[in-house]
């Protein structure tokens, strides 16, 4: 398992976490290259289908990350996202997709350092957990 490099699919809000990731990049903060950023206009538009599909395609983790409470540019998209993540966190673990593989964070536009730290920590956690089942198993 030593050379296992996890893949993280991250749905990041344009107004905050995406900007934070950008900031981490321009400030040369260095974070692991395991994350695939998918920029969305708001976490409120992350349909549960996107998350499910990412897992069935074999991602090791999904991160949904948006604006801090009170800061969502569409007023309450992040609160709606939180309910959906809660829902998925009840459903997916019943089928062996561990709770820790689905994460929700609030990372503000100026939190480049926080973004880099969270990525580093998530990768370390996932290396400890090993690859997700869908990576190798045949899922119909």
């Amino acid at each position, binding site marked *: 398992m030593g050379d296992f490099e996890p893949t993280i699919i991250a749905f990041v809000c344009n107004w905050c976490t995406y900007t934070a990731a950008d900031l981490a990049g321009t400030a040369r903060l260095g974070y692991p290259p395991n994350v695939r950023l998918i920029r969305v206009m708001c976490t409120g538009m992350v349909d*549960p*289908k996107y998350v*499910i*599909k990412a897992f*069935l395609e074999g991602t090791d983790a999904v991160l949904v990350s948006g604006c801090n*409470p*009170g800061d969502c540019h569409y007023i*309450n998209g992040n*609160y*709606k996202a*939180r*309910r*959906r*993540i*809660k*829902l*998925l*966190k*009840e*459903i*997916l673990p*019943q*089928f*062996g*997709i561990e709770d*820790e593989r689905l*994460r*929700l*964070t*609030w990372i503000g536009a100026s939190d480049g350092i926080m973004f880099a730290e*969270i990525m580093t*920590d*998530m990768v370390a*956690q996932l290396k400890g957990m090993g690859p997700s*089942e*869908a990576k*190798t*198993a*045949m*899922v*119909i």
Partner: protein
Amino acid sequence: MAKTAKINVTEGNLLASLQGFFKAVLRVEDISAILVPQHLPMKNMVMPALVTDPKQLEGADPLAPAFPMNAAKIASRLTRKPAGGKVAAVLRPCEIRAFIELVKLKQGRMENVLLVGIDCLGAYQNKDYFKFVGDNVTESTTRFYQNVLSGKGAAMKEVDLSPTCKACEHCIPGAADLGIGLFGVDTANQLLVQTQTPQGEELLTRLNLPGSQEPAGRQKAVNAIIAEKTTYRDNMYQEIAAATNSLEKLTTYLANCVNCYNCRVACPVCYCKECVFVTDVFNHEPIQYLRWANKKGVIKMPTDTVFYHLTRMAHMSTACIGCGQCSNACPNDIQVMELFRAVSSRTQEAFEYQPGRSIEEEPPLSVFREDELADIVGIGHA
């Protein structure tokens, strides 16, 4: 204040007594029609029927162990716009719960309907009902309710209640205008009628039924039935958990699925007008299938089977009322109800939501609070 009355039963004939009651309901001035399970004259089957002529109620049979569809969908069709008169709908408890969920989703309205619920004796699966029913439907139904109410149980010859009904702890109608009680009631002589809403009280007043009281033994009888079903249900949850607790096992569980989507067509609370899985979103480019196949060297066709079921769970599991029509509709005998109820029990508990309990409770995914669910944010440390 709930009111209690009774329907007198003559010669132990429950069907005739209920038919008489339905006739009386239909005679109430502003009730234009009654929706009730009815014998079809051309075949020994029982189907929901909309009756306006009291003479046609001779075939009304809400006690038959037949449950060909969840009639909440019919009630929704009948009430989505004013119809120029009220419909009294005689529904199973799970149909009432599904209808309440549809009303919350603006796919039905309470204004034009009076809900009449009856203690549910349960039903056989479709295929088993065909095996069970003889040429004389009334006689078959009579045999069924007599056995159940006398404590002999519902198992007969080679058929037994569907797993759905064995696991259904909500067999007493909870959110009807009028509830008709059978369990713990001396049904040889009377049926219990209880109002559950002001609308129900008004109807009862106009029906002029003899007053009555809840029999002393009723609550105990009801509790015993619910306890038995709850035990069955909890065992079922455990079996499902063991059978599906990894993606590989879930895939095995669903291996017979051909993506016909009958289960969602039959599901009363699968509310989307057009399911995304039948749109072009899932009519992938041919080259895409080859790409997918290349990834692991093989893909099962049609694709997106587990994707479909997981998405359906995300959409409707908080509203699943456990009616089992999904299992009834599956051409390949997949135990869909068992899987969906097991998942739903978790999602419903997470949001402290019980579908169909009350029209006042908002569907969990349609609302949010600012200060909630703090524990799911973050990556597991402070």
